[in-house]
């Protein structure tokens, strides 16, 4: 070995989750395709960007931290806002019910004295700054420049000034912001600005050739779902949006084409996830239970309500399998009927679904494929592993630690977040 050297002046860093939302519950890797659809429908937004005023507020927070990027300083501004919101929630039940803000759960037990001053350790309010969830969408929307400093663009500076002029935040960094800063008290000018930023103020016809522009995509989506939004009392969910598109069997243009794909994908995801969760639960309960599950998979009828819905767990094995097979049946029927009209980003899960639905015919192969799909999706974090007897067991890391997810539900597609933003700025 040659001369030994020590590095100096460097520090390792923790690896931040990428993408920000952990795939902890994405057991079969089906989220990636759903994300692809969501990117086509609502580019530049995320499931976490659900309050319009965070955009202008965070621009202001970035602006007052100066030229270089200082996440802690931005986090401090966020906590100042949190204290304001929390104090309003304490005084007013309606605010508590209607105004959603990050950190509400944590500070709900804080006393008035606690709420009067920014704590020295910001992580006692919440650990990860809201900034981290919003900065990528803010860049997509043109509020931030490229580069590691996340400098404000001209649009960003404009947003910052709109917030500043509406709120007059004051100088001290350790006290709550004025009540005017509340996310629900967004000013008319901020509303107009964000409406323009998202493309919701677009008037007149939109040409088919404009589909690559993300503002146009959002505008098209907003127009498409406007009626559903009204009918559903200003609330968009995968359940109330996608069911409108699943039965359309003809050439479609955007965003109807993608909405139809998403609907079919959700039936498939619900079916695969329900069966997988049931199977893992059976494996956890021992070999006998796992064998019983495999037998049930081959014999249980697909006779439950197969609509797109969120299913709360736990359910007994037979019910879970019945729901799972009913969803798979619907997905496979739709997949077959659309073969002349659509191209799927990933065909393999349909083949997996087919084998599971016909488990009587494909036997162990279907579960082997389900296991492989899970391993492929989770890598090191796989919940189950094969054992020396040719069966499966809970993986070492999860022995005694695996918890049944609370529900099986469709992917969110940013619909709920988008409709929340829309409510903030006066509707679609």
């Amino acid at each position: 070995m040659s001369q030994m050297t020590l590095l100096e002046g460097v520090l390792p860093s923790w690896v931040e989750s990428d993408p920000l939302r952990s795939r902890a519950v994405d057991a079969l890797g089906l989220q990636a395709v759903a994300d692809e659809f969501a990117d086509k429908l609502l580019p530049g937004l995320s499931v976490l960007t659900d309050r319009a005023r965070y955009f202008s507020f965070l621009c202001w927070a970035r602006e007052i931290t100066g030229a270089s990027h200082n996440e802690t300083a931005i986090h401090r501004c966020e906590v100042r806002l949190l204290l304001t919101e929390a104090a309003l929630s304490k005084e007013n039940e309606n605010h508590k019910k209607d105004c959603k803000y990050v950190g509400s759960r944590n500070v709900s037990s804080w006393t008035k004295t606690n709420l009067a001053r920014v704590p020295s350790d910001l992580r006692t309010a919440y650990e990860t700054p809201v900034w981290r969830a919003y900065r990528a969408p803010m860049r997509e929307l043109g509020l931030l420049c490229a580069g590691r400093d996340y400098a404000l663009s001209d649009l960003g500076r404009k947003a910052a000034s709109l917030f500043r002029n509406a709120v007059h935040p004051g100088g001290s960094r350790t006290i709550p912001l004025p009540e005017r800063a509340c996310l629900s008290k967004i000013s008319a000018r901020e509303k107009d600005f964000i409406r323009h930023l998202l493309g919701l103020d677009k008037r007149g016809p939109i040409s088919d050739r404009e589909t690559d522009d993300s503002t146009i995509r959002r505008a098209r989506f907003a127009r498409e779902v406007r009626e559903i939004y009204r009918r559903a009392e200003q609330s968009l969910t995968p359940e109330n949006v996608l069911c409108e598109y699943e039965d359309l069997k003809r050439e479609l243009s955007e965003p109807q084409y993608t909405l139809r794909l998403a609907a079919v994908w959700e039936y498939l995801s619900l079916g695969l996830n329900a069966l997988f969760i049931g199977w893992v639960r059976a494996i956890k309960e021992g070999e006998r239970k796992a064998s019983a599950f495999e037998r049930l998979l081959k014999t249980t009828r697909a006779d439950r309500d197969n609509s797109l819905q969120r299913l709360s767990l736990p359910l007994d094995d037979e019910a879970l399998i019945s729901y799972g097979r009913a969803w798979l049946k619907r997905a496979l029927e739709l997949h077959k009927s659309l073969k002349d009209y659509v191209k799927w980003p990933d065909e393999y899960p349909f083949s997996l679904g087919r084998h599971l639905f016909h488990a009587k015919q494909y036997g162990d192969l279907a579960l082997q494929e389900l296991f492989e799909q899970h391993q492929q999706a989770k890598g090191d974090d796989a919940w189950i592993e094969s054992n020396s007897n040719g069966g499966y067991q809970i993986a070492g890391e999860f022995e005694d630690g695996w918890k049944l997810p609370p529900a099986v539900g469709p992917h969110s597609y940013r619909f709920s977040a988008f409709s929340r933003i829309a409510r903030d700025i006066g509707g679609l």
Partner: protein
Amino acid sequence: MGGSATSGLSWTKTADSISDFLKRSGSKPPRRAVFCTYGFDHDRFSQILGPLLNRRRPFRSWVLVDSGALQAHVKSTASFGRLQIAPVRCRNGGIFHPKLILMQAGSHYFAGLGSANLTNGGFGGNLELMLFGDTAQEKGRALVQGVAGFLDRLIKSSAIVMPEKAKSFIRDLVLPGIEPNQGTVLDSLKEPLLDQMKKRLSDFATERIAVLSPWHSATENREGVNPEVIAKIQEGLAKKVCVYTEARDGRPPNLGKTVEVKIRSDQPKKLGLGQELDQESDAAIEEEVFQRRPNSVHAKAYLAVEADRKAVLFVGSANCTIPALLQKAEGDSGNVEILVAIKLKKFQVSKLLNDLEDLFIKTSEAPSDIHPKRRIKTEQGQILWGELRERQGSIVDLHLEAPDARNGTVVQIASSPIGPWVPVTIKSAKGLVTDASDLKRLAPKIDTGSFFFELVHSKSVPFPVCVPFHASSSDDAVDAIMAIVEEELGIWRDPATRRTEPTIKEKPIDPADQKIEKERGRLAGAEHQGRLDRIAVAISVLKRFILKHPGDQYAPLRFAAITRQLSPLIKNKALARWIDEYLRVNNREVL
């Protein structure tokens, strides 16, 4: 990024670090990358790093991955384009466990080293530690050189089996531009890591050691738990040891009475008030993100602290286990592991300890016996790797590497796990399929690598079959020279049309693009000339481009590699001699 001086270490996305490097280095060619990982999830890799590696001028990338782990996670339908996947086997039974990144963009280099595999967990699902640096800064340069030193030792090591083409890529293309430093990155190839750590700390008054590791070995003779590695650390480094690790069912591992053990906290400290998380999806997502805690500990670090709180930090891939720390790969059954040693100042020690105290808690639960993680069963099959070659739009042959197979062994291969099977005879550790009907039965695609299967005791065992970076890889000398020129200039051929990507119509803004367009113009000008003229123009373009690379060693090393590569292909001896002499004259007059 983020964090005040006293808070803790920064949190960085791997993709952000690479993206920053790419922004700084522009689109300069050549663009080459080597990744080492134990587990490999191609979907997540292509989702997260794919856009960066393929933006503007794509990288020619190799992923070195543990052969056994790769076989265990392969999905039969997986295909991986022109990414080169190289399975690595340890001859003596250990696993290939380093996690590192080395990228070259022109004369700029970037390195990353730590605990993160190229998997979902490695991209941030787990608690992972990585050290990143690039040659724009002196500190980063030392890391890059250290990583190059390790790769240099790896390809020469007798304990390792890996595809020859991966070795030559590292030796002939990646390493020439860097002066490897053999002392910055420690590895377990020839000497156990713990012995090397002791040497590093020989003139350092270590008072206590903090160990961050998810896994701990018990001795094989398990008469009660005897954490042998911890005992060795206490014996060789410091008596006082604190271990930060993962719990099982809330119980810490039993590491003996002399060790303080802290386990990862499942809940944020401020949320441990008996509050149940809302089951509604949005609220659950919000909690998950804003109060996010990684799913499990995967980081590996050893912090040796002096009485005055100065410290040396070893960070890398090595768990606190026997095959990682106490054994070597050559002549023993140890893993291939790496660690980098960093000298820390007081405030840096505080940052790390602050985070550890925040992320881990002491528990009063009774400890549980250690059950070291079961290793994924070792790799099977004779074939390590394959490569498809095509000429004029159709596959001409399939090369196989089976380094440990006996001469004359017949293996059955197929492109699907259920056949149809094609017999291949292995000679001198190589197999070759040239028969058109056999190739048709295998039905490979020309433009994308995928997994093939070998029949082993009626079981299908996968191995990767890659397509070369250069779409046409015939034995013709002009083709070979063009492939080298295009690699150096960062030009890709479209595998379908075999054309290079179109020239930039408008005047390129980036000076690197301007230079390349100029050279491409010269190559295009020679296209309709005679064979010798084309060779002469290509070689002169190549020489001029390579000589522009700063540093004295890049050009001679590249020229030597090019001569080595071309000499068996050029039948005309006079021409071969001329090329050799032309490249040997290492002057910069041609500029």
